[in-house]
């Protein structure tokens, strides 16, 4: 990638952020049309897009944005009101800028009709009184503000204002302050001309200055500082150091050379004096050729440039970096590496614990602490506030409710809640779907709402909050709600459940996540095709999350999505079956109890215990394996059977009781080993379709453990044992 490509890439990223900012500012503006700060935000976003666009060669974007900005400039100046038409068009313009960006990305030809349509629409909104005067003004101030990449150059500025400068209201010190803002600055005041007190006119300026300025802004920026006074002063700006490569020349000119160069001393005089040898400054001033102050000023320059050259490298390295952009895959790689490190660390601490060597133990504990911190901060880098997606949803709600003729307000809470980047990305589609459902099926039309005695505006509350190792996202609408009976009938009609099934309301609601289920009687363009909720559930399952619904007819629907904070590392419960180790995600585990074989054997006396019989290739017979847990009937799966583990069952097995879809299911294992931080390694392509396993991890001793996908496991078992 060339520097230019990098710049353009940076602009693209910046523009995308600005467009998001633009969009949310516009949406807020719609609610508070008089808020001047919001207009400013809109304007700033467009201004920056325009300015930077021109700088990096996105001329079409700059030109287009300029047109839009011109209109918004009227708004900003209070010359135009914020109307819905204006906001609609500006949002369209925002999309067009995004489209232009895409075109620049793909190299696709720009559809000029589209941009023209938006600009002409906007122009029509501008009152004719503003139309001529307002436009055509300085389209490119932003582009010239800063020259990126130009290196620092040192100038010697001699500024000698006329004595009467105060009478024009100018303040020479203010000008010097302004110069100081351009870069590193050293000022030397010449006081030679200040007269004795009785002759001094306090309204006159007798002082003049030599200023050594190191700046990257160029000579024009310096001249700009003096723009108002250049006729009322002696001003010379001389470049004394190029700031480019300087390897060997860390030293600067001799004092005499500087004085000659400044015109304070003639070359001949210098030659004459030089024959007398040093110290040159002393000699020159006592000889009366230059004043003591001129010598001091030149010495100051010499010192400044010498120091500057010495520290230049350091200075450039110390440029403040508040944030940097990193490609996402680099982060993923880092997380992978940290995962490996955590595994190695676990192995080391296991080995060390067997050695009982105090020194090694200390070291290993230190390593553990470091790798824990490293793990936490690495995972932290990937955390993003979920608010970035929320703002997108506001647009969705706005557009969709317009389209459907509904009045809906989206209220968001907890936008600052942080979630892993990957989780946020993969959460987008399911959330869009859930919101669409609420908008389309949930919230009624305004007239229906009024008749039902509800406010005309429907509300959808989208909130996110941390809860333990999880993030809970809640979508709550005050729409018409769902009737469990209707869902039940529909499910029977679709053949999803049997007509005589006895299910709770909660279970009825969860039926909407079944494939092929949809209660909307008519199919709209938004939803109602009966795909979606099952997809939503699958995507959330894939994130190791869960989703459930609650609803009350006439009052609204609540959808709860629970998600793990991160995908890379989970807390897991390690268990052993024969010689195999498995990990059960700790978030699913509710409790562990012992299973006494004798009791079970007694219960099903006379039956073959197929679990221990290796010769049997078929699955165990369809028998209900259940345990009575404090009066509650809990079905269980015996991993030993499911995975055909060799060997005999121990006399006392353990049941890990897991919560799956609101149901408690037992998983019978030989031993529960304990809780461990588990770094998830995905399985290779070959194993992707193995049911019941979602990944693998490496244990402290270097061996492998499989991570159980409990919901899938339960599903498979149910399927095979109807």
């Amino acid at each position, binding site marked *: 990638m060339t520097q230019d490509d990098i710049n353009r890439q940076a602009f693209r990223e910046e523009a995308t952020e600005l467009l998001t900012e633009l969009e949310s500012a516009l949406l807020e503006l719609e609610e508070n049309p008089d808020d001047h700060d919001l207009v400013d935000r809109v304007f700033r976003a467009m201004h920056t897009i325009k300015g930077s666009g021109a700088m990096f060669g996105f001329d079409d974007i700059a030109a287009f944005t300029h047109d839009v900005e011109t209109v918004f400039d009227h708004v900003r100046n209070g010359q135009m009101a914020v109307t819905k038409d204006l906001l609609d068009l500006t949002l369209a313009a925002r999309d067009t800028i995004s489209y232009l960006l895409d075109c620049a990305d793909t190299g696709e030809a720009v559809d000029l009709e589209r941009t023209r349509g938006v600009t002409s629409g906007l122009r029509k909104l501008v009152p004719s009184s503003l139309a001529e005067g307002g436009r055509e*003004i300085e389209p490119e101030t932003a582009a010239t503000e800063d020259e990126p990449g130009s290196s620092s150059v040192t100038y010697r500025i001699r500024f000698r204002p006329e004595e009467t400068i105060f009478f024009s209201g100018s303040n020479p010190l203010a000008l010097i302050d302004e110069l100081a803002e351009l870069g590193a600055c050293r000022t030397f005041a010449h006081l030679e001309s200040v007269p004795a007190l009785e002759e001094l006119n306090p309204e006159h300026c007798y002082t003049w200055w030599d200023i050594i300025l190191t700046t990257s802004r160029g000579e024009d920026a310096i001249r700009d500082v003096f723009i108002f006074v250049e*006729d009322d002063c002696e001003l010379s700006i001389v470049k004394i150091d190029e700031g480019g490569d300087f390897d060997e020349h860390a030293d600067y000119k001799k004092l005499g050379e500087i004085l000659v160069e400044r015109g304070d001393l003639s070359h001949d005089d210098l030659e004459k004096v030089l024959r007398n040898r040093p110290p040159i400054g002393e000699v020159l001033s006592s000889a009366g050729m230059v004043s003591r102050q001129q010598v001091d000023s030149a010495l100051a320059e010499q010192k400044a440039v010498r120091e500057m050259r010495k520290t230049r490298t350091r200075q450039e390295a110390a440029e403040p970096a508040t944030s940097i952009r990193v490609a996402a895959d680099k982060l993923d790689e880092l997380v992978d590496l940290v995962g490996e490190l955590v595994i190695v660390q676990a192995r080391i601490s296991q080995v060390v614990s067997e050695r009982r060597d105090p020194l090694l133990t200390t070291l290993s504990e230190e390593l553990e602490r470091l790798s824990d911190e490293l793990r936490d901060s690495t995972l932290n880098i990937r955390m993003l506030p979920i608010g970035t997606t929320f703002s997108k949803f506001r647009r969705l709600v706005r557009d969709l409710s317009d389209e459907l003729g509904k009045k809906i307000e989206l209220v968001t809470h907890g936008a600052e809640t942080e979630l892993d980047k990957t989780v946020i990305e993969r959460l987008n589609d399911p959330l869009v779907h859930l919101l669409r459902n609420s908008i389309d099926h949930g919230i009624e039309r305004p007239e229906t709402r009024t008749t039902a005695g509800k406010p005309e505006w429907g509300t959808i509350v989208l909130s996110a909050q941390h809860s333990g190792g999880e993030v809970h996202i809640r979508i709550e609408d005050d729409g018409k709600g769902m009737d469990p009976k209707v869902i039940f009938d529909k499910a029977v009609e679709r053949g999803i459940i049997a007509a005589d099934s006895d299910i709770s309301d909660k279970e009825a609601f969860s039926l909407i996540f079944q494939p092929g289920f949809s209660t909307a009687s008519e199919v709209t363009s938004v939803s109602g095709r009966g795909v979606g909720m099952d997809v939503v559930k699958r995507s959330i399952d894939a994130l190791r999350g869960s989703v459930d619904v609650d609803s009350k007819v006439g009052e609204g629907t609540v959808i709860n999505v629970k998600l793990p904070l991160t995908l890379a590392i989970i807390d897991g419960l390690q268990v052993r079956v024969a010689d195999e180790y498995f990990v059960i995600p700790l978030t699913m585990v509710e409790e562990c109890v012992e299973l006494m074989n004798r009791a079970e054997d007694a219960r099903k006396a006379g039956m073959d215990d197929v679990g221990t019989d290796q010769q049997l290739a078929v699955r165990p017979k369809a028998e209900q394996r259940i345990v009575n847990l404090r009066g509650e009937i809990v079905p269980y799966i015996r991993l030993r059977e499911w995975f055909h583990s060799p060997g005999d069952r121990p006399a006392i097995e353990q049941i890990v009781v897991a919560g799956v879809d609101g149901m408690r299911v037992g998983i019978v294992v030989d031993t529960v080993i304990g809780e461990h931080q588990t770094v998830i390694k995905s399985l290779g392509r070959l194993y992707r379709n193995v049911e019941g396993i979602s990944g693998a991890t490496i244990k402290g001793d270097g061996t492998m453990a499989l991570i159980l996908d409990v919901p899938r496991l339960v599903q498979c078992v149910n399927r095979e044992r109807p």
Partner: protein
Amino acid sequence: MGKTIMTVDDSASVRQMVSFTLKNAGFNVIEAQDGKDALNKLKGPVDMIITDLNMPNMDGITLIKNVRAQAQYKFIPVIMLTTESQAGKKQEGKSAGATGWIVKPFKPDQLLAVVNKVLR
């Protein structure tokens, strides 16, 4: 306590824009519609004056001269609003004691940049 700036212009819209911009930047603003009006209103502490040149009753140049004649305002920054076609006026204004100028049409941020430059 914000500084006080007087804006003098016979065009109400320019006055409004200047005043709006300055108020948003935290300045107190006194509006005057011409030189005469400005001199009448020039009583208390005023830290800076922004004046148009072409105005009825009393033009900007005369106003500047009058302002400079008052001890209290002898050294305050006075910025004149000029147009590209008035290059000659710029010099005239400077001689009368103007600190600097802004070329019309200008944008709010240009205005603020100049204000920040001369008003310290």
